[in-house]
């Protein structure tokens, strides 16, 4: 779906967005984080969280073997646990991943556009994207040019997202805002809307490669943005917090936010994802604990 706005119009609209009160936002997130999810609700939340994971490996040391191992875990995490939503890899690993998950529900997501800094020429970023799609990526996780954003060139950010969207073809586009580099909540909200105006299918917090990755207040703010964007345009956009979500307790806090801020329409992996790696094993250990009644340990889940 293409945007009908010009870059200038989009930039002007996002600059006019109402402000965010940081303390109030954080208090709301902290309030939602006090929800106590127990028993059946917890079991359901754990399986839902597993099904929403983009199981990720983004290392210079990634090899076909490592990616196959990850894909196998994504397909069958543990016993009757659901498969994850996707595996998320670098473009060079897309073909391996695609082959490994072929015929399953698990998608292949590829970071692209000169991930994680995005500091390469646009034509290289577009070629990166096209290569990933050609190799079989179902989803593209692009980074925005934070430099352009912070220098005030919102139009350039808008046009680049549109260009990557076009290069992604049928693949769903997740736009990584790298909120830890945008720093302020006002800018997170503006960047969220800019990405959505430009055609993002998902807005994603972070690369996982900077000091501050997903936080609950930032993700809550992005949830409010997709909620408001749908109310304004009728277009639904997904949300993906990534980086730093390592245990079940944290994952459930995010699900509570989805539940209470966005509701049913976003409570599936079609519209909400976790970008994570170690989170999966913690969810599996908690899942085992609910089944067996005793605590599990790291030797009872697989190292992949």
């Amino acid at each position, binding site marked *: 779906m293409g945007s009908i706005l010009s870059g200038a119009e989009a930039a002007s609209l996002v600059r006019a967005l109402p*402000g965010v009160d940081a303390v109030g936002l954080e*208090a*709301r997130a902290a309030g939602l984080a*006090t*929800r*106590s999810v127990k028993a059946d*609700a917890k079991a359901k*939340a754990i399986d839902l969280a597993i099904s929403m994971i983009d199981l990720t490996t983004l290392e210079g040391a990634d090899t076909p073997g490592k990616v196959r191992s990850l894909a196998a875990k994504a397909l069958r995490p543990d016993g009757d646990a659901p498969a994850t939503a996707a595996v998320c890899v670098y473009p060079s690993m897309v073909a391996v991943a695609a082959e490994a998950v072929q015929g399953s529900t698990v998608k292949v997501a590829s970071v692209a556009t000169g991930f994680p800094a995005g500091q390469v020429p646009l034509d290289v970023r577009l070629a990166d994207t096209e290569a990933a799609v050609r190799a079989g990526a179902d989803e593209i996780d692009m980074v925005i040019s934070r430099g352009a954003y912070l220098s005030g060139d919102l139009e350039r950010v808008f046009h680049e997202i549109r260009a990557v969207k076009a290069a992604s073809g049928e693949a769903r586009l997740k736009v990584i805002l790298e909120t830890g580099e945008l720093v302020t909540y006002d800018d997170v909200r503006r960047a969220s809307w800019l990405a959505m105006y430009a055609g993002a299918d998902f807005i994603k917090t972070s690369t996982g490669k900077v000091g501050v990755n997903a936080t609950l207040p930032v993700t809550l703010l992005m949830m409010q943005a997709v909620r408001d964007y749908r109310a304004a345009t009728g277009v639904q956009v997904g949300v993906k917090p990534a980086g730093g979500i390592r245990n079940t307790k944290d994952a459930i806090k995010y699900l509570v936010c989805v539940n209470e801020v966005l509701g*049913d329409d976003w409570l599936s992996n079609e519209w909400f994802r976790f970008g994570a790696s170690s989170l999966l094993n913690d969810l599996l250990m908690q899942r085992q604990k609910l089944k067996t009644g005793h605590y599990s340990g790291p030797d009872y889940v697989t190292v992949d």
Partner: protein
Amino acid sequence: MFEYAPAPESVRPPIREHYGLFIDGQFRDAADGAVFKSVNPSTEEALFTVAEAGEADVAAAVAAARRAQETVWGPMSGTERGKYLFRIARLLQERAREFAVAESMDNGKPIKETRDFDVPTAAQHFFYHAGWADKLAYAGLGSDPKPLGVIGQVIPWNFPLLMLAWKIAPALACGNTVVLKPAETTPLTALMFAELCQEADLPPGVVNILPGAGATGAALVDSAVDKVAFTGSTAVGRAIAKSIAGTKKRLTLELGGKAANIVFDDAPIDQAVEGIVNGIFFNQGHVCCAGSRLLVQESVAAEVLERLKARVETLRVGDPLDKNTDIGAINSAEQLGRIRDLTETGTGEGAEVWQPACDLPERGFWFRPTVFTGVQQSMRIAKEEIFGPVLSVLTFRTPDEAIAKANNTPYGLSAGVWTEKGSKILWAAERLRAGVVWANTFNQFDAASPFGGLKESGYGREGGRQGLEAYLDV
């Protein structure tokens, strides 16, 4: 939505079957043997019985307090007094969960609030005022401020332990002794506090707790105390002010309110919605400073209301001891009746009522969060304190009109302002006739921050350096 399974709080406080009056360090029954029951408002079941203090008991308690003030507490060094208060603060922290659960059971408020707000803030008040006890000469109230003597204190049922802390901590820090009457529907945490005073080895007579109803309070006001401190309704405050006229007794009053929560068109809307919800639905709206009148600029009224209603739909009403409960039980059948009566006048006078579709438990006293739109200044629901989870929504066109409507009440306790524009906040805060103004937030409280009203919301401050004035002869 996925439903959260019940998440009941598992700790149970030791609640006795019967409590006496706490006089001179001991529990004892009333001289006339009077007893009443305290009921759990979420189940309507009796929790315990408690002695009801009469005039003779009041006289005995005041005499004990007088003796303790003159012989022990008054002469004691500030350092030592402070150490007792620090000890009380620590004991409250140690037993925080017991107090939180007990408060929730006796009052009906959600465990989330007693656990995260009432009890920790009560402990903070003791900790804060403990530190003042040996520094009163530096409080800017003269080089040698003296205690007033014996203080009679009457507190309400909405924050039983916290109001006790607001009253007792500064009084004791300043060298006074106290006779405190908790509200008749919520004496439990005050009685547990009496036990805690024993545990802290507080000298007998320094703190005396006299459960009872209005007659007990009146007897305390009329007794040989040097000062009366009251938190409660404006009607009772007025009666107390009249009854002490012509005496030498000092008086501070923290009374009712009908606070305006003003949302300008340039507000941070999502946070404003949270502030509106917190402003009126915190503690079931049983809050004297509740933001019960929402004044929203016409240009954003539709958007704010839509978001507000969506948010209110997510509030969870029910078992106060469930950790996910946002709105608990109304404190008493009597209060529930009052809320019902006033809300009926709202529809009768032409306001439009809205409530979320939430289920209510079968037993107990419950009232759905309620939003009235199309409210006019002249309606009773815009003028009278409802003291329940009922919001009246009014609109305004210009900043001047917002201030004029906000101030158009005999009350003057609190107000809220929401705008991203700093200069507008300072402009509004200066003009609002209220003792506390929350800008881009609401219902924040702190031991270091003075709280109290103007006009018919009373006089005197609680908390902060300024709160000490109420308990010192300067």
